Protein backbone atom coordinates (compact mmCIF):
# COMPACT_ATOMS: atom_id res chain seq x y z
CA UNK A 1 0.00 0.00 0.00
CA UNK A 2 1.31 3.44 -0.95
CA UNK A 3 2.35 5.72 1.88
CA UNK A 4 1.80 9.38 1.24
CA UNK A 5 4.34 10.75 3.72
CA UNK A 6 7.19 11.31 1.22
CA UNK A 7 4.77 12.81 -1.29
CA UNK A 8 3.34 15.19 1.33
CA UNK A 9 6.82 16.15 2.53
CA UNK A 10 7.70 17.08 -1.05
CA UNK A 11 4.78 19.51 -1.45
CA UNK A 12 5.62 23.21 -1.01
CA UNK A 13 2.62 23.57 1.31
CA UNK A 14 3.98 21.04 3.80
CA UNK A 15 7.69 21.64 3.28
CA UNK A 16 9.56 21.69 6.60
CA UNK A 17 6.74 20.23 8.65
CA UNK A 18 7.72 17.87 11.48
CA UNK A 19 7.84 14.26 10.17
CA UNK A 20 5.64 13.13 13.06
CA UNK A 21 2.80 15.27 11.64
CA UNK A 22 3.19 13.78 8.19
CA UNK A 23 1.98 10.42 9.44
CA UNK A 24 -1.25 12.00 10.72
CA UNK A 25 -1.74 13.90 7.48
CA UNK A 26 -1.01 10.86 5.34
CA UNK A 27 -3.85 9.02 7.06
CA UNK A 28 -6.25 11.63 5.63
CA UNK A 29 -4.81 11.63 2.09
CA UNK A 30 -5.72 9.83 -1.09
CA UNK A 31 -4.70 10.14 -4.72
CA UNK A 32 -7.16 11.24 -7.40
CA UNK A 33 -6.95 11.80 -11.13
CA UNK A 34 -9.13 14.13 -13.20
CA UNK A 35 -9.37 14.18 -16.97
CA UNK A 36 -9.32 17.49 -18.84
CA UNK A 37 -12.72 19.13 -18.43
CA UNK A 38 -13.69 17.15 -15.34
CA UNK A 39 -14.70 19.10 -12.23
CA UNK A 40 -12.80 18.69 -8.97
CA UNK A 41 -15.57 20.57 -7.18
CA UNK A 42 -18.65 22.64 -7.99
CA UNK A 43 -20.03 25.80 -6.41
CA UNK A 44 -22.52 25.13 -3.59
CA UNK A 45 -21.24 21.60 -2.98
CA UNK A 46 -20.05 20.90 0.53
CA UNK A 47 -16.26 21.20 0.74
CA UNK A 48 -15.31 17.88 2.25
CA UNK A 49 -11.74 17.93 0.95
CA UNK A 50 -8.97 20.19 -0.23
CA UNK A 51 -6.45 19.36 -2.93
CA UNK A 52 -2.71 19.52 -3.44
CA UNK A 53 -2.04 19.64 -7.17
CA UNK A 54 0.70 17.17 -8.10
CA UNK A 55 0.48 17.52 -11.86
CA UNK A 56 -1.63 19.34 -14.42
CA UNK A 57 -3.61 22.57 -14.31
CA UNK A 58 -6.93 23.52 -12.77
CA UNK A 59 -9.06 26.55 -13.60
CA UNK A 60 -11.11 28.26 -10.92
CA UNK A 61 -14.35 29.44 -12.47
CA UNK A 62 -17.53 31.24 -11.60
CA UNK A 63 -20.56 30.90 -13.75
CA UNK A 64 -22.37 33.96 -14.99
CA UNK A 65 -25.70 33.54 -16.78
CA UNK A 66 -24.71 36.25 -19.24
CA UNK A 67 -21.01 35.44 -19.76
CA UNK A 68 -20.96 31.71 -19.07
CA UNK A 69 -17.98 30.31 -17.15
CA UNK A 70 -15.43 33.02 -16.27
CA UNK A 71 -11.96 31.86 -15.25
CA UNK A 72 -10.71 33.69 -12.18
CA UNK A 73 -7.40 31.92 -11.85
CA UNK A 74 -5.50 28.88 -13.00
CA UNK A 75 -3.51 26.76 -10.58
CA UNK A 76 -0.78 24.24 -11.19
CA UNK A 77 1.75 21.90 -9.71
CA UNK A 78 2.45 22.58 -6.04
CA UNK A 79 -0.62 24.80 -5.51
CA UNK A 80 -3.26 24.21 -2.85
CA UNK A 81 -6.85 24.26 -3.93
CA UNK A 82 -9.38 24.92 -1.18
CA UNK A 83 -8.88 25.26 2.54
CA UNK A 84 -9.98 23.98 5.92
CA UNK A 85 -13.23 25.49 7.15
CA UNK A 86 -12.80 25.51 10.91
CA UNK A 87 -16.26 26.82 11.62
CA UNK A 88 -18.87 24.38 12.90
CA UNK A 89 -21.30 24.61 10.01
CA UNK A 90 -20.38 22.88 6.76
CA UNK A 91 -18.28 24.92 4.37
CA UNK A 92 -19.38 25.08 0.74
CA UNK A 93 -17.34 25.77 -2.37
CA UNK A 94 -17.86 29.26 -3.77
CA UNK A 95 -16.72 28.42 -7.29
CA UNK A 96 -16.12 25.56 -9.70
CA UNK A 97 -12.69 23.99 -10.16
CA UNK A 98 -12.15 22.25 -13.48
CA UNK A 99 -9.14 20.30 -14.74
CA UNK A 100 -7.63 22.06 -17.77
CA UNK A 101 -5.27 19.16 -18.53
CA UNK A 102 -5.04 15.68 -17.11
CA UNK A 103 -4.59 16.52 -13.43
CA UNK A 104 -3.32 14.43 -10.54
CA UNK A 105 -3.97 15.57 -6.99
CA UNK A 106 -3.55 14.52 -3.41
CA UNK A 107 -6.95 14.86 -1.79
CA UNK A 108 -6.99 15.64 1.92
CA UNK A 109 -10.22 14.93 3.73
CA UNK A 110 -11.27 17.97 5.74
CA UNK A 111 -13.12 16.11 8.52
CA UNK A 112 -10.16 13.82 9.09
CA UNK A 113 -7.63 16.70 9.18
CA UNK A 114 -9.80 18.74 11.52
CA UNK A 115 -10.06 15.80 13.93
CA UNK A 116 -6.27 15.36 13.87
CA UNK A 117 -5.79 19.08 14.49
CA UNK A 118 -8.22 19.03 17.42
CA UNK A 119 -6.34 16.08 18.91
CA UNK A 120 -2.91 17.65 18.37
CA UNK A 121 -2.84 21.44 18.57
CA UNK A 122 0.78 21.56 17.43
CA UNK A 123 -0.34 20.05 14.16
CA UNK A 124 -3.30 22.46 14.09
CA UNK A 125 -0.95 25.42 14.51
CA UNK A 126 1.31 24.19 11.70
CA UNK A 127 -1.65 23.76 9.39
CA UNK A 128 -3.11 27.15 10.28
CA UNK A 129 0.25 28.89 9.69
CA UNK A 130 0.43 27.38 6.24
CA UNK A 131 -3.14 28.26 5.35
CA UNK A 132 -2.68 31.84 6.53
CA UNK A 133 0.40 32.18 4.30
CA UNK A 134 -1.47 30.66 1.40
CA UNK A 135 -4.44 32.98 1.93
CA UNK A 136 -2.19 36.04 2.23
CA UNK A 137 -0.52 35.12 -1.07
CA UNK A 138 -3.90 34.60 -2.74
CA UNK A 139 -5.09 37.93 -1.36
CA UNK A 140 -2.03 39.76 -2.75
CA UNK A 141 -2.50 38.14 -6.14
CA UNK A 142 -6.24 38.95 -6.30
CA UNK A 143 -5.53 42.57 -5.29
CA UNK A 144 -3.10 42.95 -8.19
CA UNK A 145 -5.56 41.30 -10.55
CA UNK A 146 -8.27 43.74 -9.50
CA UNK A 147 -5.94 46.72 -9.95
CA UNK A 148 -6.02 46.26 -13.75
CA UNK A 149 -2.33 47.01 -14.23
CA UNK A 150 -2.70 47.12 -17.99
CA UNK A 151 -5.11 50.01 -18.10
CA UNK A 152 -3.80 52.36 -20.78
Amino acid at each position, binding site marked *: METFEPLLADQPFFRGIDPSHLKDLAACASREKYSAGQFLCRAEEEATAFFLILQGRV*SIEIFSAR*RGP*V*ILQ*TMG*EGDVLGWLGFQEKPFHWHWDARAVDLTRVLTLEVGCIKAKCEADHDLGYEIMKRFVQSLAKAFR*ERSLQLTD*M*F*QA
Partner: protein
Amino acid sequence: MIENNPDPMLPEIFEVKRLQRETADTFTLELTRPGGAAEFSFAPGQFNMLYAFGRGEAPISISGAPARSDTLVHTVRNVGNVTRAICKSRPGAKLGVRGPFGAPWPVAEMAGQDVVIVAGGLGLAPLRPAIYHFLEHRADYGNFELIYGARTPADLLYRRELERWRGRFDFRVHATVDTAGADWRGGVGVVTTVIPRARFDPANTIALVCGPQLMMRYTVMELLGRGLTPAQIYVSMERHMKCGLGLCGHCQWGPFFVCKDGPVFRYDTVKDWFERREV
Protein backbone atom coordinates in the same frame (compact mmCIF):
# COMPACT_ATOMS: atom_id res chain seq x y z
CA MET B 1 24.52 49.42 -46.72
CA ILE B 2 23.10 52.88 -46.09
CA GLU B 3 23.94 54.23 -42.66
CA ASN B 4 21.28 55.52 -40.33
CA ASN B 5 20.57 59.21 -40.69
CA PRO B 6 23.62 61.07 -39.29
CA ASP B 7 21.57 64.07 -38.09
CA PRO B 8 19.50 62.82 -35.13
CA MET B 9 17.18 65.83 -35.22
CA LEU B 10 16.26 65.36 -38.87
CA PRO B 11 13.48 62.88 -39.58
CA GLU B 12 14.08 60.56 -42.48
CA ILE B 13 11.14 59.64 -44.67
CA PHE B 14 10.02 56.01 -44.50
CA GLU B 15 7.12 54.35 -46.26
CA VAL B 16 4.53 52.09 -44.65
CA LYS B 17 4.91 48.71 -46.33
CA ARG B 18 2.47 46.71 -44.25
CA LEU B 19 0.11 47.30 -41.35
CA GLN B 20 -1.24 44.51 -39.18
CA ARG B 21 -3.83 44.73 -36.44
CA GLU B 22 -2.63 43.06 -33.25
CA THR B 23 -5.47 43.91 -30.86
CA ALA B 24 -8.47 46.26 -30.89
CA ASP B 25 -6.23 49.33 -30.50
CA THR B 26 -2.72 48.15 -31.38
CA PHE B 27 -1.09 47.79 -34.79
CA THR B 28 2.26 46.61 -36.10
CA LEU B 29 3.74 48.66 -38.93
CA GLU B 30 6.50 47.59 -41.27
CA LEU B 31 8.41 50.54 -42.69
CA THR B 32 10.97 50.67 -45.47
CA ARG B 33 13.09 53.37 -46.99
CA PRO B 34 11.41 54.45 -50.24
CA GLY B 35 13.12 53.19 -53.33
CA GLY B 36 14.64 49.99 -52.17
CA ALA B 37 16.46 47.82 -49.77
CA ALA B 38 18.37 49.87 -47.30
CA GLU B 39 19.34 48.68 -43.89
CA PHE B 40 18.57 50.27 -40.58
CA SER B 41 20.78 49.13 -37.74
CA PHE B 42 19.56 49.14 -34.15
CA ALA B 43 20.01 47.20 -30.94
CA PRO B 44 17.16 45.36 -29.12
CA GLY B 45 15.38 47.69 -26.72
CA GLN B 46 16.04 50.93 -28.61
CA PHE B 47 13.29 53.20 -29.87
CA ASN B 48 12.62 55.61 -32.72
CA MET B 49 10.72 58.86 -32.84
CA LEU B 50 7.95 58.33 -35.40
CA TYR B 51 6.63 61.49 -37.02
CA ALA B 52 3.07 61.62 -38.32
CA PHE B 53 3.24 64.70 -40.51
CA GLY B 54 0.91 67.44 -39.38
CA ARG B 55 0.33 65.71 -36.03
CA GLY B 56 3.65 65.32 -34.29
CA GLU B 57 6.18 62.80 -33.02
CA ALA B 58 5.89 59.89 -30.60
CA PRO B 59 8.59 57.60 -29.18
CA ILE B 60 7.93 54.03 -30.30
CA SER B 61 10.03 50.97 -29.49
CA ILE B 62 11.47 48.96 -32.34
CA SER B 63 9.82 45.54 -32.27
CA GLY B 64 11.34 43.76 -35.27
CA ALA B 65 14.31 41.46 -35.66
CA PRO B 66 17.71 43.18 -35.49
CA ALA B 67 19.02 40.73 -38.08
CA ARG B 68 16.28 41.66 -40.55
CA SER B 69 17.18 45.28 -40.85
CA ASP B 70 15.76 45.97 -44.33
CA THR B 71 12.39 46.46 -42.62
CA LEU B 72 11.78 48.63 -39.61
CA VAL B 73 9.00 47.22 -37.40
CA HIS B 74 7.06 49.16 -34.77
CA THR B 75 4.08 48.13 -32.70
CA VAL B 76 1.93 51.13 -31.83
CA ARG B 77 -1.03 51.49 -29.50
CA ASN B 78 -3.60 54.07 -30.49
CA VAL B 79 -3.76 56.26 -27.39
CA GLY B 80 -3.51 59.86 -28.64
CA ASN B 81 -3.50 62.17 -31.65
CA VAL B 82 -0.07 61.15 -32.96
CA THR B 83 -0.42 57.41 -32.40
CA ARG B 84 -3.95 57.54 -33.85
CA ALA B 85 -2.55 59.10 -37.04
CA ILE B 86 0.24 56.49 -37.15
CA CYS B 87 -2.23 53.63 -36.67
CA LYS B 88 -4.41 55.01 -39.47
CA SER B 89 -1.48 54.96 -41.93
CA ARG B 90 -2.05 52.72 -44.92
CA PRO B 91 0.55 51.02 -47.13
CA GLY B 92 2.36 53.68 -49.12
CA ALA B 93 1.86 56.39 -46.48
CA LYS B 94 4.94 58.34 -45.40
CA LEU B 95 6.19 58.67 -41.84
CA GLY B 96 9.23 60.46 -40.46
CA VAL B 97 11.73 58.42 -38.48
CA ARG B 98 14.43 59.68 -36.11
CA GLY B 99 16.62 57.23 -34.29
CA PRO B 100 17.48 54.73 -33.07
CA PHE B 101 17.80 56.15 -29.56
CA GLY B 102 18.47 54.89 -26.07
CA ALA B 103 20.31 52.20 -24.17
CA PRO B 104 19.50 48.64 -25.32
CA TRP B 105 18.98 45.33 -23.53
CA PRO B 106 22.43 43.86 -22.74
CA VAL B 107 21.90 40.78 -24.91
CA ALA B 108 25.57 40.16 -25.75
CA GLU B 109 26.68 40.45 -22.10
CA MET B 110 24.04 37.88 -21.17
CA ALA B 111 25.77 35.03 -23.03
CA GLY B 112 26.24 32.00 -20.78
CA GLN B 113 23.37 33.02 -18.48
CA ASP B 114 19.82 31.76 -18.05
CA VAL B 115 17.35 34.26 -19.48
CA VAL B 116 14.03 35.25 -17.96
CA ILE B 117 11.86 37.71 -19.83
CA VAL B 118 8.79 39.12 -18.12
CA ALA B 119 6.52 41.27 -20.28
CA GLY B 120 3.18 42.89 -19.60
CA GLY B 121 0.77 44.18 -22.25
CA LEU B 122 2.50 46.32 -24.87
CA GLY B 123 5.78 45.69 -23.00
CA LEU B 124 6.36 42.65 -25.18
CA ALA B 125 7.06 44.92 -28.17
CA PRO B 126 10.45 46.32 -27.01
CA LEU B 127 11.43 42.84 -25.81
CA ARG B 128 10.67 41.09 -29.09
CA PRO B 129 13.98 42.09 -30.77
CA ALA B 130 15.80 40.63 -27.75
CA ILE B 131 13.75 37.41 -28.04
CA TYR B 132 14.69 37.16 -31.73
CA HIS B 133 18.33 37.64 -30.76
CA PHE B 134 18.23 34.91 -28.09
CA LEU B 135 16.47 32.49 -30.45
CA GLU B 136 18.96 33.21 -33.22
CA HIS B 137 21.88 32.61 -30.85
CA ARG B 138 20.10 29.99 -28.76
CA ALA B 139 23.21 27.91 -28.06
CA ASP B 140 24.87 30.86 -26.35
CA TYR B 141 22.31 31.00 -23.52
CA GLY B 142 21.05 28.66 -20.81
CA ASN B 143 17.40 28.13 -19.85
CA PHE B 144 15.14 30.62 -21.52
CA GLU B 145 11.74 31.51 -20.05
CA LEU B 146 9.27 34.01 -21.48
CA ILE B 147 6.47 35.09 -19.16
CA TYR B 148 3.87 37.28 -20.80
CA GLY B 149 0.78 38.76 -19.21
CA ALA B 150 -2.11 40.77 -20.61
CA ARG B 151 -5.55 41.81 -19.48
CA THR B 152 -7.51 39.31 -21.61
CA PRO B 153 -6.65 36.81 -24.37
CA ALA B 154 -7.77 39.42 -26.93
CA ASP B 155 -5.07 41.79 -25.60
CA LEU B 156 -2.14 39.46 -26.26
CA LEU B 157 0.29 40.79 -28.87
CA TYR B 158 1.82 38.60 -31.59
CA ARG B 159 -0.61 35.77 -30.85
CA ARG B 160 0.44 33.50 -33.73
CA GLU B 161 4.10 34.04 -32.99
CA LEU B 162 3.54 33.20 -29.32
CA GLU B 163 1.85 29.96 -30.35
CA ARG B 164 4.74 29.17 -32.70
CA TRP B 165 7.29 29.90 -30.00
CA ARG B 166 5.34 27.73 -27.58
CA GLY B 167 5.79 24.81 -29.96
CA ARG B 168 9.57 25.05 -29.77
CA PHE B 169 11.50 22.69 -27.54
CA ASP B 170 14.28 25.07 -26.59
CA PHE B 171 12.48 27.67 -24.51
CA ARG B 172 9.34 27.92 -22.42
CA VAL B 173 6.55 30.40 -23.04
CA HIS B 174 4.01 31.19 -20.32
CA ALA B 175 1.06 33.33 -21.35
CA THR B 176 -1.27 34.50 -18.63
CA VAL B 177 -4.21 36.91 -18.55
CA ASP B 178 -6.12 38.64 -15.79
CA THR B 179 -9.47 37.25 -16.86
CA ALA B 180 -10.74 34.84 -19.52
CA GLY B 181 -13.65 32.77 -20.68
CA ALA B 182 -13.72 28.97 -20.51
CA ASP B 183 -12.30 28.59 -24.03
CA TRP B 184 -8.90 30.04 -22.98
CA ARG B 185 -6.28 27.30 -22.53
CA GLY B 186 -3.51 29.47 -21.11
CA GLY B 187 -3.03 30.70 -17.56
CA VAL B 188 -5.22 33.13 -15.65
CA GLY B 189 -3.57 35.27 -12.99
CA VAL B 190 -1.11 38.14 -12.87
CA VAL B 191 2.40 37.56 -14.29
CA THR B 192 3.93 37.45 -10.82
CA THR B 193 2.11 34.16 -10.14
CA VAL B 194 4.11 32.48 -12.91
CA ILE B 195 7.56 33.51 -11.69
CA PRO B 196 7.74 30.88 -8.91
CA ARG B 197 7.37 28.18 -11.62
CA ALA B 198 10.00 29.55 -13.99
CA ARG B 199 13.11 27.38 -14.33
CA PHE B 200 16.38 29.21 -13.86
CA ASP B 201 19.49 29.18 -11.74
CA PRO B 202 19.29 32.39 -9.69
CA ALA B 203 23.07 32.68 -9.49
CA ASN B 204 23.39 32.64 -13.29
CA THR B 205 20.36 34.46 -14.60
CA ILE B 206 19.55 37.82 -16.11
CA ALA B 207 15.94 39.00 -16.14
CA LEU B 208 14.55 41.55 -18.59
CA VAL B 209 11.30 43.20 -17.54
CA CYS B 210 9.01 45.55 -19.45
CA GLY B 211 5.42 46.54 -18.83
CA PRO B 212 3.29 48.89 -16.75
CA GLN B 213 5.30 50.24 -13.83
CA LEU B 214 3.06 48.57 -11.26
CA MET B 215 3.58 45.21 -12.93
CA MET B 216 7.36 45.79 -13.06
CA ARG B 217 7.44 46.69 -9.37
CA TYR B 218 5.79 43.43 -8.27
CA THR B 219 7.73 41.42 -10.84
CA VAL B 220 11.01 42.75 -9.47
CA MET B 221 9.87 41.81 -5.93
CA GLU B 222 9.15 38.25 -7.06
CA LEU B 223 12.47 37.96 -8.91
CA LEU B 224 14.36 39.21 -5.87
CA GLY B 225 12.38 36.66 -3.84
CA ARG B 226 13.65 33.94 -6.20
CA GLY B 227 17.21 34.93 -5.37
CA LEU B 228 18.20 37.34 -8.13
CA THR B 229 20.14 40.43 -7.09
CA PRO B 230 19.14 43.93 -8.27
CA ALA B 231 22.14 43.87 -10.64
CA GLN B 232 20.67 40.83 -12.44
CA ILE B 233 17.43 42.59 -13.37
CA TYR B 234 16.93 45.08 -16.21
CA VAL B 235 13.80 47.21 -16.58
CA SER B 236 12.60 49.38 -19.45
CA MET B 237 11.12 52.67 -18.32
CA GLU B 238 8.59 54.84 -20.07
CA ARG B 239 8.57 58.62 -19.79
CA HIS B 240 7.52 61.52 -21.98
CA MET B 241 10.40 61.43 -24.46
CA LYS B 242 10.66 64.25 -27.01
CA CYS B 243 14.13 64.96 -28.39
CA GLY B 244 15.63 61.48 -27.90
CA LEU B 245 19.02 62.99 -27.10
CA GLY B 246 18.79 64.07 -23.47
CA LEU B 247 18.64 67.75 -24.46
CA CYS B 248 15.06 68.87 -23.90
CA GLY B 249 14.59 67.44 -20.41
CA HIS B 250 11.01 66.19 -20.92
CA CYS B 251 11.92 62.66 -19.87
CA GLN B 252 14.03 63.57 -16.87
CA TRP B 253 13.69 61.01 -14.08
CA GLY B 254 15.76 62.01 -11.10
CA PRO B 255 19.37 62.14 -12.30
CA PHE B 256 18.53 60.32 -15.56
CA PHE B 257 17.20 61.18 -18.96
CA VAL B 258 15.17 58.14 -19.94
CA CYS B 259 15.68 58.74 -23.68
CA LYS B 260 19.48 58.77 -23.40
CA ASP B 261 20.41 56.88 -20.21
CA GLY B 262 17.52 54.43 -20.71
CA PRO B 263 14.94 53.34 -21.57
CA VAL B 264 16.68 50.14 -20.41
CA PHE B 265 18.21 50.44 -16.95
CA ARG B 266 19.89 47.92 -14.72
CA TYR B 267 17.62 47.82 -11.71
CA ASP B 268 20.31 48.44 -9.08
CA THR B 269 21.14 51.75 -10.74
CA VAL B 270 17.55 53.04 -10.54
CA LYS B 271 15.98 51.22 -7.60
CA ASP B 272 16.16 54.32 -5.38
CA TRP B 273 14.09 56.18 -7.96
CA PHE B 274 11.79 53.37 -8.97
CA GLU B 275 9.13 54.03 -6.38
CA ARG B 276 9.60 57.73 -5.74
CA ARG B 277 6.24 59.35 -6.09
CA GLU B 278 7.55 62.86 -6.64
CA VAL B 279 9.35 62.12 -9.92
